[in-house]
Every structure is written in structure tokens, then in C-alpha cells.
């Protein structure tokens, strides 16, 4: 439907494209948001920068307004944390452990990264900082068996929460994605309702590859929500809008630093507001 002269003027459109694309929304999501602005505002309104901005914000909020369901209470609630190398999984688990330990929950961490140098030691230090227990296997042992044992221990010793750390992996590595599916299956064998959450960790500095990460990880395991880390940097994290646009995955958590308290629940209004700063 081409209405001549009923769009944003070229300079305004380019300016808004620059803002959204440099925030990592990607060209596709940017164009569909701007097309929608043009459709929803009158010819006169489209000359008013403040109205355009308000409309754009409203549409963005519509994309990311799905709030994730709270974690079901179980003994234990099992959360499986996945994502590509270096995204911030282990650190996010440390922060979550501290949050729930401070609320009086009995928390267990499963050191499911049995591959990378010092991965277990790194998680153990976070366990100490958060004052929670860490379950690990023998060096080089199979991640699925470590996590299986952790679920068993968590059930038998009545933990409230079990956070499972997994090794980073790139989503195009079929054997590693298969390994992840296997870990997921094994958790279900140890406890039929588990895992109660599969949390995909995304680095806010990532570009459009984040969409491929969300897609491919979701094919291997039922990803239910996202954690967006390193939002304390200069990256805007607009990839979550592209992901919401294409896959409708809600963001649960935001990482705002390397310290134990640097974890927040995702706030869509704050997020959209900061895109326009």
C-alpha cells in the first residue's frame, strides 16, 4: 500500500534508521517498526518529532512486553543456563545464587562445564561468594552425568533451587548442540518436571548473530527466557527487539556489571528509554 507523501520525510527516516540500527535492532526490525509508525500516524503527526518518538517507543514496548512467567516452586526448581562462549553464563549463575541465598533459599550450583580450563574453579569461587554449595564431577567427566548427579543430590537433600552451568558453545556446532539436548534429556530423567527453566544468556554487545543464537539454541533445548549481560557497556542490546520480533522470547534478567549484585530483572520501560538516550 503506497500512499504518496504519507510517510516520514527522508531525513527523519534516515535519522531514525541510524538510531535503531546502531542500537543493534537490525535492518529488518528497524524497517518494520518505522513502517508501522508511518501506518499509525497521520500525515500531520508524521511531521512532529515528539509524536514520532512516542509512537516508536509504544511499538517497541509492544514487542517486548511479554513478561516471563515466574519460576515454578519445586524441590528443587531446576534452571539450565545455556549460551555461546563468553556470554556471561557462569557469572550470571553466581549473581542468581547470591540473590536467592539472600532470600533464605537453599541453593546448589552444578558445575556442568567440564571442558574449559578453570571453569569449575571459577564457579566454585562464585559459590563461595554467594555462600552456596557447588556440585562438581571428576575432571573431564561427562557433563550430563555431573548434572544428573546434581539433580539427584538437590532432590535428596531438599534444595530449593538448582542452577546448572553448561559449557559455552557456538550454535553451528552440531555435536555440541546435541550434547546440550542430551543434558536436557538427562535432567528430565532425574526429575520429570525438570528443568523448570532454560535460560539463554546473550551478550548485549552481540550483533545480529544473536537471532541465530536464539533460533539454534531453541532448536536444541526449549529456551524459555533470556538474560542480557554487559548492558553496563556502550552497547544498547537492541538485539532483544529483533529476537522478540522474530521469536517472541521474553527477557527475564539483565547483567549490569561484574559484581555479585549487578543483576536486575528486565524492565521494558527502562530499556526502551535508554535506547533513546
Amino acid at each position, binding site marked *: 500500500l503506497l500512499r504518496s507523501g504519507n510517510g516520514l520525510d527522508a531525513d527523519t527516516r534516515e535519522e531514525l534508521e541510524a538510531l535503531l540500527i546502531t542500537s543493534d535492532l537490525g535492518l529488518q526490525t528497524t524497517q518494520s517498526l518505522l513502517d508501522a509508525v508511518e501506518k499509525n500516524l497521520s500525515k500531520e503527526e508524521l511531521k512532529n518529532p515528539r509524536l514520532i518518538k512516542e509512537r516508536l517507543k509504544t511499538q517497541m514496548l509492544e514487542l517486548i512486553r511479554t513478561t516471563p512467567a515466574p519460576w515454578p516452586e519445586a524441590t528443587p526448581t531446576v534452571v539450565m543456563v545455556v549460551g*555461546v562462549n563468553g556470554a556471561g553464563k557462569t557469572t550470571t549463575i553466581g549473581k542468581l545464587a547470591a540473590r536467592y541465598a539472600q532470600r533464605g533459599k537453599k541453593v546448589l550450583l552444578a558445575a556442568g562445564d567440564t571442558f574449559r*580450563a578453570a571453569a569449575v574453579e571459577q564457579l566454585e569461587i562464585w559459590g563461595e561468594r554467594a555462600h552456596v554449595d557447588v556440585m562438581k564431577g571428576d575432571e573431564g567427566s561427562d557433563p550430563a552425568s555431573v548434572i544428573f548427579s546434581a539433580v539427584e543430590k538437590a532432590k535428596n537433600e531438599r534444595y530449593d533451587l538448582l542452577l546448572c552451568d553448561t559449557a559455552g558453545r557456538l550454535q553451528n556446532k552440531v555435536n555440541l548442540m546435541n550434547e546440550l539436548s542430551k543434558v536436557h534429556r538427562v535432567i528430565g530423567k532425574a526429575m520429570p518436571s525438570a528443568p523448570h527453566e532454560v535460560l539463554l544468556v546473550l551478550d548485549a554487545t552481540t550483533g545480529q548473530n544473536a537471532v541465530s543464537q536464539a533460533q539454534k539454541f531453541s532448536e536444541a533445548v526449549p529456551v524459555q527466557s533470556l538474560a542480557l549481560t*554487559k548492558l553496563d557497556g556502550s552497547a544498547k542490546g537492541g538485539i532483544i527487539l529483533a529476537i522478540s520480533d522474530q521469536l517472541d522470547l521474553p527477557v527475564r534478567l539483565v547483567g549490569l556489571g561484574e559484581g555479585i549484585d549487578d543483576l536486575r530483572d528486565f524492565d521494558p520501560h527502562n530499556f526502551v528509554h535508554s535506547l533513546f538516550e
Partner: protein
Amino acid sequence: NLEDRFGDILKKVRGQGTLSEANIKDALREVRLSLLEADVHFSVVKSFIAEVKERALGNEVLASLSPGQDFVRIVADELTKVMGSAAAEIDLRAKPPLKILLMGLQGAGKTTTAGKLARLLKEKHQKEVLLVPADLQRPAAIHQLQTLARQVGVDAFDTQVGMPVSKVCQQALAQVDRRGQDVAIFDTAGRLAIDLELMEELREAKQLIEPTYTLLVVDAMTGQDAVNVAAEFKAQVGIDGVILTKLDGDARGGAALSVRQVTGAPIYFTGTGEKLDGLELFHPERVAQRILG
């Protein structure tokens, strides 16, 4: 080669008598789309497209027999200009000790790359290497690098938790002198370019070490922020070269074009796997093809 990648773009310009603003419009849009999808920075794409357009409408294509081919050649040429035409190599004949300082954002792959570099220099170039864990911040970072040093079979400085970074650098340099090692590779903590205190710490470390090469380690999946990161590290610390990691993934790697454009620094290596043999020389044409998709 790069020009073979342009099948679709070529179709849009084929059979035209000459290149005009009208018939290259679609082709330019195609190139722009491709670069933005690949995470090349918005303004880097804008200036790239402007360069291509200027040349395409300029004298070199007037009355050409195959304007489509000329357009394609211009795009390939402009890409090669930015990416470089030949693999850049570290100069190993420099007077020892060769000192390499690795820096970059959190999780980019610095520690793993330090191990990979040590392995390359030892196995391929018979160098005696000291790996220096100078990340005093991340839990088990020292242990991580010392483990990699053991796996490669090179020396690692015995950094103690709680040591100031400056002391680690000074003592490690003294050790390299005493032991007569050829290479020292300094691994540092990941840091945000906007963290003034940590950037100052990095500057101090650089002043102490006086590295032969100060290398920025960049994750190939980095998005638009690559431009900010490259510009800040260049302005505040100085960049001699870049290592692009995780190219074994399926990210297009447009960050490489942005970083090249902003810093002009050579990309020396690419990380192509999690294991210590996953390090290759940077091939500009290969990465340019990947970015174009």
C-alpha cells in the same frame, strides 16, 4: 573469489549500456543490506556505499563493455582497500624479548588466545614463551592461564591473587630477562572501553611493559558497538593490531570491517576454535567474502 560472490548484485546491473544512478540504485541497496545484516557499522556502510557510488558513476566506468562487471569490481576493490590485500604478520625478527599485550572486552577470548599464541610461537617458531596472568579480577583467571601454559608446555608467571597489576608486569619482565625468554604474552582483565579507571590501569600496564605489540581482541559476533570499542581503545591506549575470535561460528563478522575502518590497524590472527590449535593467520579476502554473505 570475492567477485564470484556478486551473482545477485551483478544480475541487477547486467545488460545496461552504462552505469547510471538509476540502474545501480538496486545494486547499491543490495550491498548496503548485506553489509548491515553482517553487523558492519551504520556509518561505515554509509561511507562505503558513497565511495562505491562515486566510483561507479565516475570516469572509470564510462562507455564500458560490461558495466555490471565493473560495478562488481569496484565493490570488491573498495572492500579490499579496507580489509587489506595480504595477510599481515607479526615481526618475529625484532630484538627479543617480543612483548605482546592482549586487551579487550569481557569474554572476547583474550586468555584462550594467549594460550594459542604461546602454542604457535613455541611449536612453529621454536620460541621460549612466558605467559603472564595479569588479570587480577576475574575469578580463577590466573588458574585458567596457568592451566593453558601447562597444556602448551610453556612457562607461566606465578601471579598471586591480590598482587597489583603493575607489580605483576614488573616482576614478569624481570623474570623474562633473567631466564632469557624470547616472548612474553600479557593477558589482562576484560574491561569496558567506557570504564575510565580500568582504561587507566591498562595504560599504566602498557607504560610499564612497553609492548612490541598491543593487540585488541575482538569477538567476531560483535555488533554496532565494535566502532565504539575500537575507537576508545585506540584513543586511550593505542592499538598495534587486532585478533578476531570465534570465527568458527556463523557470525558474518562485519565488526572486522568496522574495526579496520576505525583503527587502520592490521588484523593479525583469527580464532577458529576453542582448542589451543584454533588460531590462523587473518585472510582479508576470506573474511570480506563472509561479510558480504
